[in-house]
């Protein structure tokens, strides 16, 4: 029945959806022919009625009730007698749902209305999305329909969390809320998507009896098609559009591509501001130069008026005179304010304007922003205008060579489009290539409630990249080039409850086509309204995919490498190897930011090439070069690097070596938002700045680990990492930047484990030595060196072995008994060899002991694991301070083993 309901509507809905808002969505429920309570008329052409009821009588009459249809009580009572016709157990006909009709009046099916998206124009609150209780409950917010034939397979999915990926630059949403249709045959495949991002799940925050009716809405549609041109060669095209709409407008107004102004935004402008400031304020000089300015007003009749000619001049605040120009350096800003409310020239008032353009003759390192009284922070009282960037100068020009006239054609946002092409060649004679070319178009319109056809403005920005690889053993060549404009944008605004947009709130008011999901867990890291999100992310540090940080597996407030016993197997993240190719001090695979997950950062263009030689199955050498430049500034990242990797293993030994060295000139800041797990407190996300320690430096990073065994019972492991950043600048320059000449991390870990079976018992002895030296790049942060020696003894004694069932516990490879008593002792000694560290104050020695009784037993199909025990510990510092800790625990876990 579900299948019928969905099939009856989806093709029409999809076709119609591409014309949003020019058509009416879905199929109406209560407004359908016959209404929800009509019954199927069997084979009759028209709905049946009781002919006997047609009588020339004056009194009120009622159609006899058909009990089998419904047992709903009526307000009147008929005499009933079941002496002849036996009374039966009648159930509600609504248990099977209601009867629904399509637009043509045909009955669709008896069943439930799962999902209905309607858009009726022209009247208020014409856009509504209904998600029935069954959709959210029985179907868990996901329905799937399929169709196929003639080599074509199609599948329709409607859900709240559909993983949807087109291309990295166009559409990547791990939790797309809407409708998706996929189709494929042998050489062509494609996807179409439809959604209303504004309040798609209102039913979750209000009573499900209320549909999410909206007058102003944001609709999204798009698709991706891929054509297999030849074996291993594919071409793709993507189009995604999110546009504003307004159901008060007529059916033909607006455009599904350019959108329409929302009700609250389509008001006459009272004031308009344009701000110029220094695009590189950090240098404090040579900012924006403004030579001249004027406003051009175009009324609804097409008459063009220049502000200077009619004496309509702005008030100018800020900046300072420099020759015949006005300059804004450093933190200064020039603000031009036009009070349109006072406009009354040649009979033209603000109500008569169809277009407003501000012309600015500017040069050097300018950053132009604009706003109006309709572009605010969304507050109902004392709304503050919010400036949004219009244009930024490329580079950090100081000689006037980029002098130009910028026309700020003002408008409020109405739509965002992304149009892209992608291609790939896979292993064609060792050559592979893939790339993408995308333009983002942002539509804006000048508001005026008195006219139907608004002046439209479109801004375009380009993003592209290409990656090529040539492999012919033992050689490998790789190159990647990219350019992502600063203004490249794949997001749209969402309106608030009252149809207003909070332009200053990127958290609550943005809908991104490309989500920020650096840890690939399917949950975006930024908070968006009515979309699942989680700020917490630790990319690369959940390699076992258990949704717990690898270094805090027991999910408490203490990192595992600081916890007794656990620290034997857990090492600090500083010991983990990896490449840091943006030179911000964090290994790239562990980086988390708050930006859309484009493959490269915006406002940058560059190239990265390397050649690799395989000198054997386990050894490779790589030499490469990267050149990255900021587009709107003069920042750059230049690096020449070398990478060596050796992975050698025998049955009893494994040795791995990684060496990364680079000559770096990097002054592009790459700030991050990283997971910090401090000792003794809750882990949290924290903004981590880029110290720009690679401005002119040598980078060296080595990693080695060695694992070997003595028989089956004794294992050794050694691990070391050395990361060094050496500044090449002069002493004075390094001092002024508050950097250390040499900074980085050095650490070495030795670990040994010896497990001795003693009858049914097991004695485990362990030893771990950790030496580490931290020297942060910033002189403001302390540096220090520590050495810690740890010894562990664990005794495991099975109890009730003869009466309990046994099971194999694969981790240890030997019998694990149902009930065990475990005793553990850990002894530790730490020396703070020099300096100071954030987590170490003084030398100390500590001991910790644990007694634990554990039991495993079956219960209701689950395996219960019950543990009870006591842990006691003491840490004694050399300055006579001491800390005592003790913990009693009793835990029960149920698993599906």
């Amino acid at each position: 029945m579900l299948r019928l309901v969905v099939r009856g509507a989806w093709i029409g809905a999809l076709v119609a959806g591409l014309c949003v808002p020019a058509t009416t969505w879905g199929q109406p429920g209560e407004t359908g022919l016959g209404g929800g309570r009509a019954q199927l008329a069997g084979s009759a052409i028209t709905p049946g009625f009781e002919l006997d009821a047609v009588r020339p009588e004056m009194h009120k009459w009622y159609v006899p009730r058909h009990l089998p249809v419904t047992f709903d009580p009526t307000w009147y009572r008929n005499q009933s007698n079941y002496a002849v016709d036996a009374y039966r157990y009648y159930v509600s006909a609504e248990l099977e749902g209601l009867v629904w009709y399509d637009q043509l009046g045909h009955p669709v099916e008896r069943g439930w209305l799962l999902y209905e998206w309607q858009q009726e124009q022209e009247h208020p609150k014409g856009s509504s999305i209904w998600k029935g209780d069954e959709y959210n409950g029985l179907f868990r917010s996901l329905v799937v329909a399929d169709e196929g034939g003639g080599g074509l397979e199609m599948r329709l999915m409607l859900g709240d969390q559909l993983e949807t990926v087109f291309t990295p630059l166009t559409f990547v949403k791990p939790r797309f809320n809407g409708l998706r249709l996929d189709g494929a045959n042998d050489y062509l495949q494609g996807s179409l998507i439809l959604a209303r991002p504004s309040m798609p799940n209102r039913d979750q925050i209000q009573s499900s009896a209320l549909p999410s009716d909206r007058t102003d809405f944001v609709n999204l549609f798009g698709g991706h098609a891929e054509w297999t041109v030849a074996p291993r060669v594919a071409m793709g095209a993507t189009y995604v559009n999110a546009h504003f709409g307004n159901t008060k407008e007529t059916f033909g107004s607006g455009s599904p591509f350019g959108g329409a102004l929302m009700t609250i935004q389509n008001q006459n402008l009272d004031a308009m501001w344009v701000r110029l400031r220094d695009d590189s304020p950090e240098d404090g000089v040579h900012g924006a130069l403004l030579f001249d300015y004027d406003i051009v007003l175009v009324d609804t009749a097409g008459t063009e008026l220049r502000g200077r000619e009619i004496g309509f001049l702005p008030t100018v605040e800020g900046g300072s005179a420099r020759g015949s120009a006005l300059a804004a350096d450093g933190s200064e800003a020039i603000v031009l304010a036009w009070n349109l409310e006072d406009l009354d020239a040649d009979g033209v008032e603000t109500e008569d304007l169809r277009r407003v353009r501000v012309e600015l003759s500017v040069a050097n390192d300018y950053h132009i922003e604009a706003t109006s009284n309709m572009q605010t922070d969304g507050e109902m009282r004392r709304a503050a205008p919010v400036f949004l960037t219009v244009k930024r100068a490329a580079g950090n020009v100081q000689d006037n060579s980029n002098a130009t006239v910028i026309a700020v054609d003002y408008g409020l946002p109405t739509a965002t489009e992304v149009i892209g092409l992608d291609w790939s060649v896979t292993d064609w004679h060792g050559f592979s290539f893939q790339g993408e070319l995308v333009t983002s178009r942002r539509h804006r319109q000048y508001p005026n409630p008195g006219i139907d056809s608004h002046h439209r403005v479109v801004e375009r920005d380009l993003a592209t990249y290409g990656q090529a690889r040539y492999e012919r053993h033992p050689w490998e060549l790789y190159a990647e080039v990219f350019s992502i404009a600063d203004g490249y944008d794949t997001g749209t605004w969402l309106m608030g409850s009252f149809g207003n947009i909070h332009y200053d709130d990127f958290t609550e008011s943005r809908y991104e086509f490309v989500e920020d999901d650096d840890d690939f867990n399917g949950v975006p890291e930024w908070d968006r309204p009515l979309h699942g999100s989680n700020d917490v992310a630790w990319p690369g540090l959940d390699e076992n995919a258990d949704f717990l940080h690898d270094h805090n597996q027991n999910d408490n407030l203490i990192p595992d490498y600081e916890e007794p016993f656990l620290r034997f197997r857990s090492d600090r993240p500083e010991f983990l190897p990896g490449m840091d190719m943006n030179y911000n001090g964090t290994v790239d695979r562990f980086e988390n930011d708050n930006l859309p997950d484009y493959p490269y950062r915006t406002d940058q263009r560059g190239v990265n090439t390397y050649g690799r030689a395989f000198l054997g199955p386990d050894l490779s050498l790589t030499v490469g070069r990267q050149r990255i430049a900021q587009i709107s500034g003069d920042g750059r990242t230049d690096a020449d690097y070398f990478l060596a990797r050796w992975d050698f293993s025998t049955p009893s030994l494994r040795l791995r070596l990684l060496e990364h060295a680079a000559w770096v000139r990097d002054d592009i800041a790459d700030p991050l938002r990283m997971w910090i797990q401090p000792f003794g407190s809750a882990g949290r996300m924290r903004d981590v700045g880029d110290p720009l320690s690679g401005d002119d430096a040598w980078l060296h990073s080595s990693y080695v680990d060695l694992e070997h065994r003595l028989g089956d019972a004794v294992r050794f492991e050694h691990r070391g990492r050395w990361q060094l950043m050496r500044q090449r600048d002069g002493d004075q320059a390094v001092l002024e930047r508050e950097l250390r000449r040499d900074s980085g991390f050095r650490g070495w870990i030795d670990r040994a484990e010896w497990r001795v079976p003693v009858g049914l018992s097991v004695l485990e002895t362990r030893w771990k030595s950790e030496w580490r030296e931290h020297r942060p790049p910033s002189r403001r942060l302390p540096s220090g060196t520590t050495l810690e020696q740890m010894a562990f003894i664990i005794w495991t004694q099975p109890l009730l072995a003869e009466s309990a069932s046994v099971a194999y516990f694969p981790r240890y490879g030997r019998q694990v008994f149902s009930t065990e008593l475990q005793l553990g002792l850990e002894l530790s000694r730490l020396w703070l060899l020099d300096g100071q560290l954030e987590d170490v104050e003084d030398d100390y020695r500590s001991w910790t002991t644990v007694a634990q009784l554990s039991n495993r037993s079956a219960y209701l199909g689950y395996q219960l694991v019950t543990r009870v025990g006591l842990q006691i510990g003491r840490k004694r510092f050399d300055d006579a301070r001491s800390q005592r800790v003790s913990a009693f625990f009793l835990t029960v876990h149920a698993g599906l083993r």
Partner: protein
Amino acid sequence: MTLPVCLLAVLCAVTGALAQPQSVILEARGYRSEPDLVVVETASHWRAWEAGDGTRIVDSVGTVRPRFIRADIDAVANAGEFVNVADGDTTIGGISAYGNRADSLTAAFVADGDLSTWWEPDTENLGSAWVEIDLGRTVVARRIRLRFADSGDPFLMFRVLVADGTESFGRKRTLLFQRAGQVAAPNKDQREFVFDLAPRRPVPDGIEGEPVQFVRVDLLGTDGPRAEEVDRLAYFRLPEQDRGAIDYFRVTVIGREIPVLRESYLQLSLEQQGPVRYYRKERPRLAEVEVEALGDNIIALTQRVKAESGDFFDDLVRRFVTDGLMRTGLTVREYDPFRDRDQLLIDLGARFWLERIRMLTDRTPLTSYQIRLSDGSLNADGDFEWTTFDEKINAERYLEVEETFSPQPVRLVELRRLNLLNDARLAGKLSEIQAYGRGYVSDVILTSPIIKFDGRQMVTAVSWEGEAPAGTSLEIRTRSGDRLIQIPHYLNMAGREISEALWERLPDEQQGPIRVEEVPDSDWSTWSEPYRETGRAFQSPSPRSMALVQARLRTFQPLRTATISRLTLGLAPPLVDLAVAEVTPTRSIDPGLAREFTLYLRLERQPGDPGFQRIALRSSASAPIDVTGVRIGSDDELRFDQAEVLWPGSLEVSRLDGGVSFELPDGLDLSGRILEFRFSTSVFLPSTTFALELINDDDGRTQQVDTGDATSLVASNQLVVVSELEGLPLLAPVEIDSPVFTPNGDGVRDEAEILITLFQLQGQRPLQVAIHDVSGRRIRDLSFTPPAPSGQHRILWDGYDDDRRLVVPGIYLLRVSVDTDAGASGTSAVRTLSVVY
């Protein structure tokens, strides 16, 4: 006349200033007007200038300097500067209470900084022999020092109590004092006592001092009339009030001395009469109480005024934690990192040299927090550049925590209350956040009130008196205009601004005053370039009826500062009442090509205007101005070619540096007529400004001509023309006047003349010009750096190479290039030259 004005007039009469009542009224506006001068010189003038709260100090003689933020201060010395309004009462720092009403005058001597004055309690009633000092704000005090007057006695026994301002509960709320020190053994000699104040509450290591707002000194013991025994002669030499007791003694047979009354003593036999002892009366005199504190709390200095003015009603937390008072405080909201909000942001109003942030509370402190500092600089995104300190955990729940750092200029302090210990319900109260440092405020901007002239006036020069030693700077900027926008602010009875609609709905008795704010209208100029030297000509448009002046005192070293004490604007009547001009065309100007422009000048004279003899026309372009015609007439006469031709004719035209000068014929009637100047010139920059000046040769005065509607023939209303340079190469095709030349010294074609034309470039930009032979070897470098790169540059090549050898005949390559920041295309060219003999 209103009552305040009457009082002011009376005051003026007393001070002898009544002779100039007008100027007295203007004093409150921040300047004094004279017929040909505007003067800013007195302390009241400078105090009327706008600056960040607590950022400047104006001394009594009218010298303004940035405030010096002190370390290790005596908090008593400036207690009187702090005024607190609470519970309907206004208190001023100083003596806040005393035990004996008779001490109402003398008690203040312990806080006047003068060791020669003192407070002497009444020793007859020890219970009321105490004095209480209110420091006006909560300071972090290290120690308290008591100095007793040399001319009296130290207190025999006393104690010192301190309170941070918190009070007891209950109906009668009293300050909770703690004992800071006590002298319980009789003290006769020591006249200076120092009591160290160690933190009494849990604080981390390294935190010194104790929050103190009130200090109380109690006299506990006295010798009263028997301070010191003196001999009889000395006794009677003492002033009457210093004479103490006289004790009489009877001597027993065993030698005991028993005090007796004088009457009894006199009746004793000589053998029984013992000694008579004379005493000096004790004069316990406390000269000074000093509270040695960490320093000036910059946050309290800069935020308190706002708090008192009621602007902080919408943010009680910020008001309470920045008011300098420990007794007020609230729970700080937890920082929301997702939305980057709910942090406590404090704008100090200027850059201060800071080195320490301290946070105080009386209970349930912040258990985790983070401090960020910014000097107000912006980054490319328009956000402040922050110095972010590590997140700090206060697991021990210390009531005072501190963040110290190397001295740095700071304008913004941000506190983020974190919740790293998951104890949101138990913590987070903050009583005070304090900032300490040392040095002069690094950047103070003083902005004058709107200076209103007596009608439209020409400002001839800007002069000032001040000092700017090395490491500091003093900059003056000006702007001028004619119109003001008046913005009414509707206030309620509490002085809080409300909407006009709400104000009108209020009953009359609840309506507050309407405060009208005047701001410059759109006709005002922008701020001028800084005046580097005193006495410079006014840089803003003139004549105007109003002006604004800004003085910026900057220091780049904490212990050096610039000062300003006097500023004057020279005034003169305008040469003509009105002079406006406009030029056409203003758009689509082809760069580099000679283009004819027409400039219209309209003048209106009033009787008595001094007038002028010459008009100077200048251009910001480097190309010369070639005059093609000058006419005068009405709009219609100009339109129908009926205007009087002045040039060629009676007008004299001469060249000026960067322009031309027109000397008007005598007797030319200008009023109400329009002068039309036709000239041709080339433009090389994106915008070129033409400037007209009217010059009176009699006194050398110059009046700038304004842009405006000079004629109905055109509607540009401006003197700026904009070139369409976009898309054009910055380097025009290189021209060579004689590509084939013979450098043989015969005077004919001995040199090659190279003409290079550059557009839109500004600044020092080297022009690469080199001669290469056909093999590509450079033989002559003719590169140079022109002062203004845009324009036409002529270079001569005499046929010699860099070694001053004549090159051999042949074909040579000329390479011209210029580097640009934008990496623009079309910035290089290659031409050939032929040398023949």
